[in-house]
């Protein structure tokens, strides 16, 4: 079946169902009557349907089922669902046992640490160090190992640290099962703890923190040397959304939600995560499966926000761990603006978050509360539960309504990628304007630039789950009448 979609000014785009397969990104670039880029659209053509899949299932299955949303950040979905189901069994965030709370935090920070390591070392670093137009055969982790051996080795070793933390806390490195309604089903053993503190087969968290401080020095130098490219690449004003903890500090597991405008002012008062779904609406467009969340108080057009590392560092008042706080101060001084709007700063922000995670992990591993004591709390059963946390790529919201028969009646998920939907479209638009200035030919360099822009935000799109330089993309250029005048396909 061919679907015809009306767009403004009577133009039409024909979307072939063949493109609705996982693994291909589709971009259309719309020119105005003067031949300038009016808008670019990133079409996400996969459909997951998890909100329907979990209906009718017992509520305690949700934390296990929803992990299948993602092979990179299953732990984030596992824990967001567990937080929501905690509320169903009458357990609030402050009611968790010390062992339960500590183990979940350790799992969560291990997850963000490994995901950021993958994102930076396996994806971003080859782009940054070899250039976005370097040959794909070189622009990958193996190329990095050949030419920047120490950096790559550290990246692989730090990913292993994160993965092993997940294994120790969740039982498996991918699709773990340990968070249960009201808590967790295992302690950390002293033997497991000592493996991390001795750094057996991987860096200790303290060593990782040292490495990250050195790496942050390197990326600061990189930004200094490549300022004109970074400053001009996919930079645009936006709101920013993230969780904050006490004193407005960076918080990844539980706190209040804060949204700020491009000038840094709060758009609404910080709000409890239990109220989160009152604050967000979700707009849909016919040309993509990915929804567009927005703050109801501001409406669809003005209420969208960026999320993820860049947004979290823009939103927070500081970081509670000392080395990450020092890195944040330096980052802000360098950026020269309180609200950083340049997309490529995501990577620097990601490294600062890794440093913060290493510090938090070190502290949690030394906390005896994780080794013993009650694991599960209980309370009075409720019908509805909301769980929110900061996943590696941004704010993640889960909401479940459960019937008296213990079966899930309704589920709504707002995942990190959807918050960044508008931002990714704007990033692709900015890249298209830069690349197409005065020409109407789609070069390979444009595909590379689009890939780099999307990856600043997310490696998880169906179109991004491929090796660097091999992201399957289809880019089509449409004139003001909606006629395709150029197209280039890769993959």
């Amino acid at each position, binding site marked *: 079946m061919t679907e015809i979609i009306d767009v403004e000014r009577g133009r039409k785009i024909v979307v072939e169902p063949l493109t609705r397969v996982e693994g291909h990104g589709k971009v259309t670039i719309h020119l105005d009557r003067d031949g300038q880029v009016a808008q670019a659209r990133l079409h996400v053509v996969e459909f997951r349907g998890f909100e329907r899949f979990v209906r009718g299932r017992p509520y305690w299955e949700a934390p296990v089922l929803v992990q299948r949303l993602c092979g*990179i950040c299953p732990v984030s979905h596992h824990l967001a669902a567990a937080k929501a189901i905690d509320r169903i069994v009458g357990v609030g965030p402050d009611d968790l046992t010390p062992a339960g709370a500590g183990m979940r935090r350790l799992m969560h920070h291990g997850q963000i640490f490994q995901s950021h390591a993958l994102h930076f070392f396996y994806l971003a670093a080859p782009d940054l160090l070899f250039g976005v137009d370097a040959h794909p055969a070189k622009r*990958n982790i*193996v190329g990095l*190992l050949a030419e920047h051996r120490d950096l790559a080795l550290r990246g*692989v070793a730090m990913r*292993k640290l994160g*993965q092993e933390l997940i294994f120790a806390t969740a039982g498996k*490195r991918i699709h773990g099962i340990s968070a249960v309604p009201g808590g967790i089903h295992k302690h950390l053993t002293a033997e497991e703890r000592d493996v991390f503190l001795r750094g057996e087969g991987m860096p200790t968290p303290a060593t990782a923190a040292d490495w990250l401080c050195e790496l942050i020095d390197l990326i600061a130098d990189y930004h200094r040397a490549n300022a004109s490219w970074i400053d001009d690449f996919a930079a645009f004003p936006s709101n920013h959304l993230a969780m904050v903890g006490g004193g407005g500090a960076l918080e990844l597991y539980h706190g209040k939600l804060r949204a700020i405008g491009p000038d840094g002012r709060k758009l609404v008062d910080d709000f409890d995560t239990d109220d989160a779904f009152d604050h967000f609406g979700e707009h849909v467009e016919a040309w993509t499966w990915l929804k567009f969340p927005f703050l109801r108080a501001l409406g669809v057009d003005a209420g969208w926000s960026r999320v993820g590392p860049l947004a979290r560092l823009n939103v927070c008042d500081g970081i509670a761990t000392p080395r990450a706080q020092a890195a944040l101060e330096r980052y802000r001084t360098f950026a020269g603006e309180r609200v950083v709007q340049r997309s490529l700063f995501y990577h620097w922000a990601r490294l600062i978050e890794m440093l913060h995670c290493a510090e938090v992990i070190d502290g949690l591993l030394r906390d005896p509360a994780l080794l013993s004591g009650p694991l599960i709390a209980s309370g009075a059963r409720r019908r509805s539960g909301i769980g929110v946390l900061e996943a590696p790529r941004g704010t993640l919201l889960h909401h479940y309504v459960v019937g008296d028969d213990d079966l899930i009646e309704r589920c709504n998920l707002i995942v990190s990628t959807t918050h960044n939907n508008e931002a990714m479209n704007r990033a692709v638009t900015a890249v298209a304007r830069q690349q197409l200035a005065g020409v109407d030919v789609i070069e390979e360099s444009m595909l590379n630039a689009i890939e780099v822009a999307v990856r600043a935000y997310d490696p998880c799109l169906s179109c991004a*789950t491929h*090796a660097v330089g091999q992201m399957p993309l289809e880019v089509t250029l449409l004139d003001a009448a909606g006629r395709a005048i150029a197209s280039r396909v890769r993959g």
Partner: protein
Amino acid sequence: MRRLLLAVGNPGRGDDGLGLAFAAAVEARIAGGALPDVDVAHAYQLDLDDALRLAGYDAVLLADAAVDASAPFELRQVEAATTVPWTTHGFGPAALVAVAQALHGRVPSVRLLALRGATFGLGAELSPTAQEALSAALAWLDGGGWV
């Protein structure tokens, strides 16, 4: 001489647990004093940082279920891949060897013990085909096949 058995699979998916079942049998032999030079590791699925595990070994045996192997099992020499995906969705033995080569320079001999599986249902037991593969592979091991 130090050897590593790296078993891969999901025991919750029927015959996909074949590699882990083989590893459990090897661990039982090690506990009984056999195979003193063998270490055993497990992976739900291969990932890029598993390449770190290969350092220091002279020989590595990857044990995994396979739907395309001749029954009851096949032994395959694993050569380094020329392209390496970063995603766990497509990271296989050849990619593992390529990354290990880049990481360590020297790579041990890596062979894949491809155990023929037939059914991969959720929560299923090992099928008769898988049981046959497991028995045959253990007989091969006990007969000194992995040297």
